[in-house]
């Protein structure tokens, strides 16, 4: 009797346990199922509408914040170009400084001329020997140029705005609707006057059509430069906005500014020296033909040139350009935001986003890819230092010769070799990839530079062949 009651009690208990357990499992399964359902629903919503038109954008909408209302993801990334991050050879580092009356900045990037004082010798007599810092992100382009000490050293023209500010709308206003006329008008203004006409660093409208969002070139310097370059290849009347492919535009919009240039004539017209081609030799030949010099070297009297960040030109000599890879493929790689695929508008070094930049094509671990890049850059940097030493030797010899007022053919020839040696060296020094954009071409250019320095020293010793480097080709 007692036994039976116990058994009954047990079976009731175990049945209850079974019921409870089943209820628990069913509850958890329901919770899990609903959670999954909601997750799938959310992912579906993400995938649905990529774009909400909140504001109307026109060809006069200059402020990127207004564009940002329609394109918040891209705008967020764009604003992050304030980041200051070092890579092994590039990038910028925030350095504190005490604001002065002229320059209210309390943070600047590290000084390149203090890192390598040989640069001061190379640029002796030119404003760059006064102040030259590592470039910071796009967000600082206008501020850093407004307050550089170079402004105090030399009276800069309004031409600088072409690439240090968002000028599309200001140019159009100034030219009464004509972009080129506005460009010409601003070129001739003093910097301080031109500065009052612009408000933003590079903005959305500088690369995008406000209606279709398609890429477009807005910089007169590039429009004219690429036309001259294409003409040298036999393509007449090249119109970049009508004739370039979408993939080409993904490099051309960057090439609007990341190029070698000079200010032509008293009207200070910005010109990209591409009429003979994009290679350093062709650019040098162009400068020889038009007889241009940036300044006279203070220590040697040589008619010297300053090369300016020719990223577009050097990249075009490299394997990536040859394989059809655009600037944006590595510097603004596609990324996933929810279900959307957008290009990363936080433009910076691919070394800071190796997975999205490199691994899309190169299936190696990140450490391996970084090692490959830094291997190229290490070698480049060593060779660059050798070329710099060679140039310093030539400048020292020339300086000594100038002190005794030497004024013969050998002196002139050596000065010309200095002009070439330092333009070639500066071409890869001012270029911002430490050789990576085209490693072999960069090494060749440095080799040529070392050779020019050697020939310059020979010229002073009187053993030089009178032949110009061009004639040797």
């Amino acid at each position, binding site marked *: 009797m007692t036994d039976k009651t116990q058994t009954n009690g047990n079976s009731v208990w175990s049945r209850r346990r079974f019921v409870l357990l089943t*209820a628990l499992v069913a509850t958890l399964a329901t919770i899990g199922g609903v959670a999954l359902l909601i997750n799938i629903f959310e992912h579906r919503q993400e*995938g649905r509408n990529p774009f909400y038109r909140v504001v109307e954008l026109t060809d006069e909408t200059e402020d990127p914040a207004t564009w940002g209302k329609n394109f918040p993801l891209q705008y967020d990334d764009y604003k992050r170009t304030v980041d200051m991050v070092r890579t092994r050879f590039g990038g910028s580092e925030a350095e504190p400084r005490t604001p002065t009356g002229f320059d209210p900045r309390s943070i600047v990037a590290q000084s390149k001329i203090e890192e390598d004082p040989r640069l001061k010798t190379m640029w002796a007599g030119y404003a760059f020997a006064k102040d030259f810092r590592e470039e910071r992100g796009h967000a600082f382009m206008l501020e850093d140029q407004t307050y550089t000490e170079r402004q105090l050293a030399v009276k800069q023209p309004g031409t600088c705005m072409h690439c240090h500010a968002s000028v599309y709308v200001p140019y159009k206003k100034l030219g009464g609707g004509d972009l080129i006329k506005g460009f010409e008008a601003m070129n001739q203004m003093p910097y301080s006057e031109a500065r009052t006409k612009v408000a933003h660093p590079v903005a959305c409208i500088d690369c995008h059509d406000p209606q279709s969002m398609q890429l477009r070139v807005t910089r007169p310097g590039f429009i004219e430069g690429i036309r001259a370059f294409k003409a040298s290849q036999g393509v007449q009347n090249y119109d970049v906005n009508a004739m370039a492919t979408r993939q080409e535009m993904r490099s051309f919009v960057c090439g609007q500014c990341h190029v070698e240039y000079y200010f032509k004539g008293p009207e200070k017209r910005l010109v990209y020296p591409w009429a003979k081609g994009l290679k350093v030799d062709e650019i040098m030949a162009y400068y020889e033909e038009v007889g241009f010099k940036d300044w006279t070297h203070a220590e040697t009297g040589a008619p010297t040139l300053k090369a300016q960040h020719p990223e577009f030109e050097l990249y075009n000599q490299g394997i990536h350009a040859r394989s059809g890879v655009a600037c944006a493929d590595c510097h603004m790689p596609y*990324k996933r935001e929810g279900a959307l695929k957008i290009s990363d508008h936080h433009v910076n070094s691919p070394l800071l986003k190796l997975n999205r930049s490199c691994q899309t094509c190169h299936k190696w671990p990140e450490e391996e890819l970084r090692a490959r890049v830094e291997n190229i850059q290490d070698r480049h940097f060593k060779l660059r230092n050798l070329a710099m030493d060679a140039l310093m030797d030539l400048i020292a010899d020339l300086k000594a010769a100038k002190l005794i007022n030497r004024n013969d053919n050998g002196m002139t020839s050596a000065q010309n070799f200095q002009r070439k040696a330092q333009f070639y060296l500066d071409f890869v020094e001012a270029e911002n990839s430490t050789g990576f954009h085209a490693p072999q071409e960069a090494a060749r250019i440095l080799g040529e530079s070392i050779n020019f320095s050697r020939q310059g020293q020979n010229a002073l010793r009187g053993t030089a062949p009178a032949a110009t480097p061009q004639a040797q080709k």
Partner: protein
Amino acid sequence: MQIRKLWRIILAGLVGMAIGVGVYTFVYARGYSYLTNNPASCANCHVMNEQYDGWLKSSHRAVATCNDCHTPSGAVGKYATKASNGFWHSFYFTTGGFHEPIRIGKRNLEITEQSCLKCHADITQAMNSAHSANGDEQTSCVRCHRSVGHMH
């Protein structure tokens, strides 16, 4: 007795709800589409949009779908692979935390390599026998012919 009945009804309701939610989620997520050979269903969750777009433009578009290269031959192997990939892909897609750009895993790479040989056995036999005679690993097809299915 009455209480026990009530319990049963509650229990049945709970189990029914779990099953109902499960079935609805399966249908809503187009779970049945994963049993087919339709390549579009592999891009249901948009994480493989690039691969799908790439395949549409590839040389193999007319002759091979996702399943032809990414599942082994035979129904058992095929559905076992689909089940395993289906679970893990859903798991990582739901929880996040996967490598970008997405990459093929070791096991799936082996299956893909084998799939090349399914159709191209005639031409690959000579290559493979030459290499395996030296005790080398089997030559990888996709290491060189990476873009035949889709570029990335």
